[in-house]
């Protein structure tokens, strides 16, 4: 059949477009069940630090130093965008005071299914410790949780950028 390659190509384009049109991010549908506050991943996120209750600390960045002064002067709190990764989505909220990262929390962490939840609950404390130790988002991914680590680092970096923290 001479037309065979064209038939396959036509089918491929249709299939590709069909899936693109039909696709919803994992978080929008299937993750609903795991999104509740009782989810295992949520429970193990480090408890909110003292800075969390500070008044005026909205999700928008509130940098203390609005000038383009050296970043070490930065202070305040900022929330990164929602990072979607293969197995779910998360948002990091970073607290900076006196030019140091003092806390990282995850106001949003939704994972797809049990394995990812379990994984998230194990690695998130590790990732937080790494950020606090490195004083940057430039951290090593936890092996076995590459996607989660990437999303975590990206969200932390975005929050730090809002604070002009370097």
């Amino acid at each position, binding site marked *: 059949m001479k037309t065979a390659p064209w038939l396959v190509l036509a089918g*491929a384009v249709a299939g590709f477009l069909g899936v693109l049109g039909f696709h919803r991010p994992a978080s929008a549908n299937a993750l609903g069940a795991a999104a509740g506050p009782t989810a295992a991943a949520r429970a193990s996120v480090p408890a909110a630090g003292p800075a969390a209750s500070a008044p005026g600390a909205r999700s928008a960045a509130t940098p203390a130093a609005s000038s383009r002064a050296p970043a070490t002067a930065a202070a305040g709190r900022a929330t990164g965008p929602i990072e979607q990764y293969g197995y779910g989505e998360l948002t990091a909220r970073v607290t900076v005071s006196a030019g140091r990262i003092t806390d990282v929390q995850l106001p949003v962490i939704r994972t797809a299914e049990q*394995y990812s939840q379990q994984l998230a609950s194990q690695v998130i404390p590790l990732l937080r410790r790494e950020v606090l130790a490195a004083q940057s988002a430039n951290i090593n991914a936890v092996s076995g949780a590459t996607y989660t680590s990437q999303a975590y680092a990206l969200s932390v970096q975005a929050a730090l950028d809002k604070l002009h923290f370097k």
Partner: protein
Amino acid sequence: MSSPPVSFGVPPSSAARNRKRKAVRAPASPRPRPALARAALVVAGAGLGATTALAVTSETASQLSAPGGLLTFAGSLTGLVGTYLALMMVLLVSRIPFIERVAGQDGLLRWHRAIAPWPISLLAAHALLLTVGYAQAARTGVWHETGTLLTKYPDMLTATAGLALMCLIGVISYRALRRRLRRETWWLIHLWMYLALAISFAHVIVLGPSFVGHPLTQVVWSAAWAGSAGLVLCYRVGLPAVRSVRHRLTVTEVQPEGPGVVSVICTGRHLDRLAVSGGQFFCWRFLAPGMWWQAHPYSLSALPQPPYLRLTVKGRGDHSRSLARLRPGTRVAIEGPYGTFTRYAQQRPRALLVAAGIGVTALRALLEDLPRSAAPVVLLRAGRPEDLVLHAEVTELVRQRRGQIHELIGSREQAAIDEVSLPRLVPDLKHRDVYVCGPEGFVAAIVDVAANLGVPPDAIHHEAFAL
């Protein structure tokens, strides 16, 4: 058993005999439907496009720019596409009847072989890319990451074993190596591919970012795999088993036909219900000691004459030589009928049939099945006069159909069929389909000559047998 030998001669062409013969003649195999095969191609393409889209949708721009992001994306893309192509490879050899009837088993096998290197190399790339990508993301060494992948991730150990098995079989199937193996040995090794695919399946569903959290994708993907497995079981195992039990063929007689050539005549039940066209072949499994575990393809050398079937074989390999020693009463299992070398392939009003050596068997059955209007011209090539087996039957069939027969005896140089001699033998070539059957080299040569003489590819049909 001292019954007289079964005669498989050509029935006389008197009208009365024809009517009688039609009553017991087996029904023709169903007509090929190219539209169905085309639809299958579109569906296969759609699957490929959808699979690619799955890989694309599970990535975000920020992930791509993160350390190891590009490699991770390339890894999941190669994994998905490689797995999908592996599934297509399985379907290409699953003997789905409506596809088989259009593309033919040799056509499908050609595709199977052409695609073969892709899934294996894509899946190997998938493993390498993801290991390096994850190692980059974790800022750790590749070997350390390999250990993590194997020990910490679920279902990764079996998937890796599957990939290793796949690569091993891939290397063995490489032409140069494969030639050193016996066909049966290679075939048995090849079957392990199903195991390799089966044990690699789980890690896709459990770990694939396109699948986790997408229950619909998981269900559709699983259904595609289960469905394919079902098709393979149904058409490669189930249907042949049912046919074999139903027709319960046994060897009745082995008749010598020429130097090293024998006809095996089998008796079976309900052969008037076995739909087969002249020129088709079965895979025959003779349930005798040392032979039961291998099935070999041989054409029917005549249309069934219930309760008899006949195949004619030249002793070339171990298997075909051992056919001469078959005992009457040996049970026979069949797979088939397969093949597109039939009257349905005919595009033009008349036909030219060319056969070399033992290729005459398929031609003999096809000749019996061609419409009378085909006024067949038959060219038989043989090294020596005694190698012209089934000659009397072919001559009689040609005479009944008011055709012509030419015997070309001698070496290739002495009795060449080329661009000069063929038009002289067949002046009305442009009104004829060309059917060629014989050894690979012969078939290729005749196909070339016919094409050079302006016969369009659609009107050239061939059945080559490899040694």
